[in-house]
């Protein structure tokens, strides 16, 4: 460990070096990377560094927004489900009404048919 950084005041450096904690920390040195670290990093830069800064920035921006996107997506899908359910129930209601109307009309027709046939029977008796 060097005596002190060049951009620190001598007073600061003296304060550090007189502190036993500081001296003790120096006994557990910073780990060093292995001999192939630079080569591996260079290869990774070649591989991953192809994207432009703006592209990366956009991706990071999107990644940060994922929570909002997830919440928004859920809310949107819930709203969609509600609307679809509403439309379906309205449609079923309408179909039911139409069915009932047909049934009523059919029953009216049947009544009128039977009355007319009975009258014709009466007529034929003459």
């Amino acid at each position, binding site marked *: 460990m*060097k005596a*002190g*950084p060049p*951009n*620190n005041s001598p007073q*600061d450096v003296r304060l*550090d070096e007189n*502190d*036993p*904690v*500081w*001296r*003790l*920390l*120096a*006994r*557990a*040195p*910073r*780990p*060093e*990377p*292995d001999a192939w*670290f*630079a080569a*591996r*990093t*260079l290869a*990774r*830069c*070649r591989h*991953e*560094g192809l*994207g*432009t*800064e703006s592209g*990366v920035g956009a991706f990071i921006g999107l990644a940060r927004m994922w929570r909002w996107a997830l919440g928004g997506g859920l809310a949107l899908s819930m709203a969609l489900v509600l609307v679809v359910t509403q439309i379906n129930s309205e449609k079923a209601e309408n179909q039911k009404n139409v069915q009932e109307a047909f049934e009523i009309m059919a029953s009216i027709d049947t009544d009128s048919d039977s009355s007319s046939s009975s009258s014709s029977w009466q007529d034929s008796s003459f």
Partner: protein
Amino acid sequence: MKDRFRDDDGARAPVGDSDAHDKALMVRIAEGDEVALRDLIEKHQGAVYGTIAKMLGDPVEAQDLAQQVFVRVYRAAGSYQASAQFKTWIFTIVRNLVFNEHRRRSRATLVPLHPPENEAAHSGGSAGLDLPDTATKSPGENMLHREMLRKIDEAILALPEQQRLAIVLRRYDEFSYEEIAEILKASVPATKSLLFRARETLRVALQDYLEEEG
């Protein structure tokens, strides 16, 4: 990337003008000079990797994060503005990545602070550097020495992340208070206060070893 081999201009600046050298390397990297990128990595790999390893206590994760730092530097070379010191700028990237990693870890499962010894030895961790000194120390002394190193690393890892980064930058990277304040996005008095509290916490945690030393 174009592979240009140049050994002239600002990249071979005088030794004392380290920051200007770094900035000249960044200009060359922006132009696609792979040799400049290798120079920059070789110049800063020790500080970047060592700081991250001290911050995370995991040499394997530290390798990955340190590589990510240089990938970011490479990607940002085109838009790099040489307004601040290069070293402060690169350590701001280190800070962001390390703090993000802490947040990711706090959301995920807990990771052991110290990997198994054989793993650390293979990946260049502190345990790997601390090979037994059989020439001058007995096996018992070696064991005690390793135990002390482990306790020191544990004490550093137990500090809150801001204090930990402040102490690592100050002790191992020899940054000034102003530079640490810039990296931590804090004021100089706040940085001094962080460092004071970190030292006091370490003083208590490492009391046994301090008494031995005293």
